């Protein structure tokens, strides 16, 4: 730093007026009455991702053409981008701050692109050789796969058990092939299962018990929810009345099921009911769907409902089954009663109330029930699950202390990304357990970047028609160029993306570029506030306190 020069005598003075030193002795930071602070916020997409993906992060990498890095960033929190790109209900996208500007980033399409890229162009790095710690993962559905994958990545010796022949659980046996073809699923599962010992046709409680689990240091239980709820009506155990989930499993296992010209009734309004109805329609059935509330209360994802509506499936709302009878010609006579909506129940939705005297009958060949599923925890002597959360106290002592659970057993929403997230979290807990630590829930509350944090002057609205043609013209299949173009639209809400604005626009050279982002040199910052005002994504704020 230059010193302030004071001439003590005439002899010190130069012959002509010429500068001898710089001005940096003049710490103009003392002028400041407010101070810029770097404060990254949480983007709404990341905040809403049940799997905990850094969506903004991978879009930023994709933007710069770093596809491999982007893919690896996804793999850090979600081992199955291809699956999620197809079946996730993408709450990330519905909360995108760009929605009200022109159109939300099609994050799901981005993830699907990344997943497909990963199948073709990605070679995973070598795995660490398995160490001394052994973990058993029971259930090869989304949560079990996720837990197994993250344990194996950290060098844990993982054995994965599943009652079925193929891994994937609900992904393989539950989700219809028009949403997730098994030939696409398989290569992604192969990548996840690298280095993991998979034991098929091993059902916990039937083919092996707690005794066999003794040689494992930790056990993850992710057996999901497969037990169809009962309707508690007469005739539901008749041969023609079947579980919708079992039907999906049969179809997905490759069994031939013929419904040609048959009258099929699907009871329920959730995602399983939608899948059952649409699958039955594809197999030639005349399908009607019966739901006891209205379309607004359907628990199925909005997109599922939209697609359901676009197919010739008869939808009956505000009807509930009251009795099913077998007629002489082998048909099923269904008695229904009309409902009306009453007061909201504990789920916040209006409770359906029967309308007296409104019974009517419908004939059908087959009735599929899909009114919800419960976890089947019969392998534990006691129920294993009290109301709501998993009840560890009821589990056998030998298992209790090393048992971790995830997926649909937990009272989370029953979605693939929730299961993936809970599986990864359980893996983290298991790793901490191996190290003798315990993971505490983070106490800090995320500050989510809202639309007001974005400086819209730095973003240009897209031509929506052109975008639509570009993104969806190829039947939902996009190339690298389109993916990069779409990723480029990301606002990067609340997170610095090194745009250089704060650096470029500082009149006082008080913003310094460093390896960990921009730093403010408070010696010279006069607190004008340009940097915070011109930050496109709201990652800088002015602190009035100085």
């Amino acid at each position, binding site marked *: 730093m230059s010193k302030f020069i004071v001439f003590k005598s005439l002899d010190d003075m130069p012959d002509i007026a010429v500068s001898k030193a710089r001005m*940096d002795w003049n710490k103009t930071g003392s002028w400041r009455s407010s101070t810029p602070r770097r404060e990254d916020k949480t983007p709404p997409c990341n905040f809403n991702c049940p799997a905990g993906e850094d969506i903004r992060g991978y879009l930023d990498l994709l933007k710069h053409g770093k596809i491999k890095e982007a893919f690896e960033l996804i793999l850090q929190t979600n081992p199955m981008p291809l699956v999620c790109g197809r079946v996730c209900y993408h709450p990330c996208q519905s909360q995108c701050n760009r929605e009200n500007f022109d159109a939300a980033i099609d994050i799901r399409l981005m993830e699907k692109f990344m997943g497909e890229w990963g199948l073709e162009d990605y070679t995973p790095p070598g795995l660490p050789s398995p160490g001394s710690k052994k973990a058993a993962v029971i259930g090869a559905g989304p949560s079990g796969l996720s837990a197994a994958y993250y344990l194996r990545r950290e060098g844990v010796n993982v054995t994965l058990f599943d009652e079925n022949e193929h891994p994937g659980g609900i992904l393989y046996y539950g989700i219809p092939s028009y949403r997730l073809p098994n030939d696409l699923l398989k290569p992604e599962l192969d990548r996840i299962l690298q280095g993991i010992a998979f034991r098929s046709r091993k059902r916990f409680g039937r083919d092996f018990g707690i005794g066999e689990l003794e040689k494992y240091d930790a056990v993850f239980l992710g057996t999901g929810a497969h037990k169809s709820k009962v309707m508690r009506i007469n005739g539901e155990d008749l041969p023609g009345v079947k579980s919708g989930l079992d039907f999906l499993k049969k179809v997905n296992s490759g069994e031939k099921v013929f419904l040609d010209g048959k009258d099929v009734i699907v009871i329920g309004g959730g995602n399983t009911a939608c899948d059952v109805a649409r699958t039955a329609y594809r197999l030639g059935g005349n399908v009607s769907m019966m739901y006891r509330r209205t379309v607004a209360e359907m628990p199925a994802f909005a997109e599922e409902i939209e697609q359901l509506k676009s197919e010739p499936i008869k939808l009956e709302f505000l009807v509930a089954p009251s009795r099913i009878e077998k007629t002489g010609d082998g048909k099923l006579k269904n008695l229904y009663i009309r409902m009306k909506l009453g007061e909201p129940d504990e789920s916040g939705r209006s409770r359906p109330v029967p309308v007296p005297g409104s019974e009517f009958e419908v004939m059908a060949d087959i009735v599929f029930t899909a009114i919800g599923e419960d976890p089947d925890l019969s392998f534990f002597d006691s129920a294993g699950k009290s109301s709501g959360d998993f009840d560890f106290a009821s589990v056998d002592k030998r298992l209790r202390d090393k048992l971790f659970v995830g997926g649909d057993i937990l009272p989370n929403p029953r979605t693939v990304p929730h299961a993936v997230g809970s599986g990864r979290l359980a893996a983290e807990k298991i790793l901490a357990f191996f190290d003798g630590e315990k993971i505490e829930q983070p106490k800090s509350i995320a500050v989510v970047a809202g639309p007001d944090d974005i400086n819209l002057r730095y973003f240009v609205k897209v031509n929506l028609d052109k975008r639509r043609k570009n993104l969806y013209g190829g039947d939902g299949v996009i190339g690298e160029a389109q993916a990069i173009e779409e990723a480029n639209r990301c606002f990067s809400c609340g997170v610095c993306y090194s745009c250089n604005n704060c650096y470029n626009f500082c009149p006082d050279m008080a913003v310094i570029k460093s390896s960990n982002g921009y730093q403010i040199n408070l010696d010279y910052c006069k607190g004008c506030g340009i940097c915070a005002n011109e930050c496109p994504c709201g990652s800088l704020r002015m602190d009035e306190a100085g």
Partner: protein
Amino acid sequence: MIEEKGIFSGGEFCGHASCPGCGEKIILRHILDVLGRKTIIVCPAGCAAVTDGIFPHSISPVPFMHTPFDAVASCAAGVRAGLEMSGRSEVTVMVWAGDGATFDIGMGALSAIAERNENILYICYDNEAYMNTGIQRSSATPFGSWTTTTPRGRLKSEPKKDINFILASHKIPYIATASPAFIDDLREKVNKAKEITGLRFLHVLSPCPPGWKSDPKDSITLARLAVECNVFPLFEIENGERIRLSYRSQSLPVTEYLDMQGRFRYLSEEETETIQSRTDEYYKTLNSLHESEQPLRMTMRKE
């Protein structure tokens, strides 16, 4: 984007006396970074001269020569001649003058070096009044603006002097307007001007929070809105003949720009409409001349 040369790595440029949110310092920073060390700044009286440093200190990483208000162009011509005689023709002589020295006081000397097509890069940071001495109006002050010499009730009734077309009539090789909000464009224009021999004139809008009565944090926003509202369009003129718009603006209403500044607080509705219609007219004319081969018409603005 013209790559950074890191000319300020040694702590230069920090500690200057410009007001918070000063546009002039943002612009100068980037210009010097593009021009590099082989540059001599010739600077008349004005904000840049007083904020550069206290004798014997300077923020400048290159020689910075102070000159009298009216003589900056002549002094620059002298520096140029001296460099040529000593065989240092690779050095860029850059004038760094405000609107007072350019539009008013130094206008005669500027016209003279333009007529002789001296090999000088003349850059005007235009904050649209004599800000350093206390916000007196200049011929660069826009119509309807408040200054201490055009107070409320006697707002400036004359439009801003159209300096670019005055210089275009001298047929100098390069003229360009620029805004600090469009840093890439500014840097590219400086780089282009650097490679041209003869008189090059850059006219850069320089937001001034104390003079414009605006919030310091809004300096860049204002520099951007000036362009987006067509109040300060970005264009280039080559050889006084060919005009090219460098940026197709969003043509926002001028009120978006005016309403953020206290100096336009006293505008009547009629005056605001006058500004809007003159702005539209000017931009229309620029558009009609854009990349056309015809020589420029001399009267650009209807009074």
